[in-house]
């Protein structure tokens, strides 16, 4: 009887140990799942596809190093069709069906906006992905945006400070009547007021506008010192062409400011020398040196060409890779996947990334914004490789990364 009891005790202990080992193996064997809904179709797909290439590159890099917490990392992505209507469903699927461990926000503001109440309600960490003022209403304390801006004025600060140094007294505004452009223009108007500039022309145009010749003529007639343009990619290209044909007059010292699209390789290649002299915002240009960035672009470029997406990818992709690096740093340091623990770490510590060190403010945006203001110089036609060279986009602001002085007036800089 005693031997049977002893045998039963040994058997129970062995079974318990086997179960515990199996459970431990199950946890460590399972990959860490990171979920994202990102535009692969629709208006945002150009940026979304390139961003996904960068994120996958980080996943492959981290897995080559053994993963996180001794577990492989798996990226689960769905196409959000560039539509906010699809976002809540996709992220609920990621959370409730795919059971992802961590979340990355969709690329850009509009698809991210519907997600904010969901993550706040569920107390989840969300790594932002190039959205603008999306946490303004919700005020979620576990939101961390990868984009190098915070408020609207951080975009146009460099443009107006440069204009101020040139002694500008008047300004003209031309803005698309759409979400992002209007926010940008509002920030620019505030800065203009602070500088005491007189507004001599102000026009919002419908997003479907294709002919800007009448507006450019009106700007020319108003003789402003500064022309601040807040436009979307197609508009930006049309405006640059109109300026090239008509000209904005000798009074204009600076032209540009918030023109989206002049950062994208296909548009830069297509416009070529027509961009010379334009002063515009950007996030990264060759010549800005951070640890690992050159190596990143060499590897990204190969993958981008294979995937038929933006081969240079300066504007968005290093910041997407940086999302991965921030996750890696936080998970490695805290040895945890707990969202609250990770958020606390991200809030308190400096993140080391290929786009430089990042510290977050209380709203989850960069504590010190680093939107750069650049001037196109010496651009030729039909040559993609020229944009890899430093000096083609001279950084005027901020001072920490400045690479040259402004050439003004605009007509002189165009030559």
């Amino acid at each position, binding site marked *: 009887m005693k031997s049977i009891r002893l045998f039963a005790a040994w058997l129970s202990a062995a079974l318990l140990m086997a179960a515990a080992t199996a459970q431990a193996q199950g946890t460590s064997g399972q990959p860490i799942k990171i979920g994202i809904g990102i535009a*692969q*179709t629709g208006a945002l797909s150009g940026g979304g596809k390139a961003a996904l290439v960068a994120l996958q590159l980080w996943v492959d890099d981290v897995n080559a190093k053994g993963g996180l917490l001794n577990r492989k990392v798996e990226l689960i992505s*769905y*196409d*959000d*069709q560039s*539509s*906010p*209507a*699809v*976002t*809540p*469903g*996709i992220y*609920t*699927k990621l*959370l*409730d*069906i795919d059971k992802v461990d961590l979340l990355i926000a969709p690329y850009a503001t*509009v698809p991210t*906006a*519907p997600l*904010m*109440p*969901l993550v706040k*309600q569920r107390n989840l960490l969300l790594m932002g992905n190039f959205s603008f003022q999306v946490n*303004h*209403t*919700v005020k979620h304390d576990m939101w961390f945006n990868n984009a190098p801006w915070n408020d609207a004025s951080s975009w146009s600060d460099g443009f107006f400070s440069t204009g101020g140094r040139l002694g500008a007294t008047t300004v003209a505004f031309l803005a698309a*009547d*759409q*979400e*992002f452009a*209007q*926010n940008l223009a509002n920030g620019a108007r505030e800065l203009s007021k602070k500088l005491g500039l007189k507004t001599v022309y102000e026009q919002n145009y*419908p*997003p479907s506008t294709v002919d800007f010749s009448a507006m450019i003529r009106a700007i020319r007639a108003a003789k402003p010192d500064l022309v601040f343009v807040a436009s979307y990619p197609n508009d930006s290209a049309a405006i640059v062409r109109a300026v090239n044909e008509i000209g904005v007059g000798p009074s204009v010292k600076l032209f540009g400011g918030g023109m989206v699209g002049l950062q994208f390789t296909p548009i830069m290649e297509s416009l070529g020398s027509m961009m010379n002299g334009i002063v515009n915002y950007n996030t990264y240009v060759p010549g800005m040196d951070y640890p690992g960035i050159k190596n990143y672009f060499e590897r990204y470029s190969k993958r981008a060409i294979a995937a038929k997406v933006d081969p240079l990818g300066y504007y968005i992709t290093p910041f997407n890779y940086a999302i991965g690096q921030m996750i890696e740093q936080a998970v490695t340091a805290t040895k945890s996947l707990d969202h609250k623990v990770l958020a606390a770490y991200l809030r308190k510590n400096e993140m080391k990334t290929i786009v430089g060190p990042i510290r977050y403010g209380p709203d989850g945006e960069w504590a010190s914004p680093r939107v750069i203001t650049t001037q196109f110089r010496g651009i030729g036609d039909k040559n993609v490789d020229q944009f890899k060279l430093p000096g083609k986009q001279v950084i005027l602001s901020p001072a920490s990364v400045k690479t040259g002085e402004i050439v003004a007036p605009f007509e002189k800089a165009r030559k």
Partner: protein
Amino acid sequence: MKTNGYGFWIGSAVVLALACIAAATIKNEYYFFAAYIVVQFVVLATAWNILGGYAGYVNFGTSAFFGVGAYIAVMLIKWMNLPLGLQIVAAACVGGALGFAVGLLTLRLRGIFFSIATVAVTIILETAVINWRFVGGATGVQILRPPVMEPFDSYTKMLFVCAVILAIIAVAIARYIETSWIGRGLRAIRDNEEAAECTGVPTLKLKLAACAISGALMSAAGAPLAMYQSFVEPASAFNLTYSVSALAMPIIGGTSHWIGPVIGALLLGTVQQVVTVTISSELNVLVVGVLLVVFVVGAPQGIVGLFVKLREKIKGKNI
């Protein structure tokens, strides 16, 4: 097809009970997110069929009415923070009035001219909202959901049950119209409007009524969008996809019977939801197009028509 009044209401009660049981027992919210969209399309397809199916006036303006519903809800939330039920009622009233007004202006047109006019309505209303800063203008507006009402434990589940109730109301109205003198009048208009007019059918009044009821239901379907998405912006609220899907679903299901749009919406809506998260979103749009072409060419009477044909064949064999 025969219609059984008791059977319909018992069936509706069973559907509502199943929706409530699902909300009480299923923990996974994703199913409710996906199911909400499918049920929303049941309302839109049924509403479209009242004018498009029964009267034969092809309306491309579903997205206009849907967007108006969404923005009426946004306005009421920002203005008075009204509860969801009142948002839906207000949206239905405004949608009905809009339908009446649009009908007055456009129903004298026929065929492709009427369809083009309804597309224009969408563009006009979207432009108006883009320039209306109170509801966020072109930027869109973020909406924070209020605390969920008892007995629900999540707002999404509440929205789902709400959508099911809306769908039952929409189908009940469509069924009443189909089986009453209104439906007979609308069918007469569809077959030959001049002949209907000559035989004493009040064609303009009936068309206006159909347009107003259809508009009211479409706007009611749009009202919960603000709470579903927590964010509304003009491009997605007035998206032409709603118009295309609301048209495709009754054509696939069958426009002659009230069950047709329901079948079409359940089938196409479910396929769209599955395709979105399994294969590709590009295919999502392709699926609608391909199914539409297949049914228009192969089965112009839709699934209901196929079913009727099959039944007649079986009957013929038995005789």
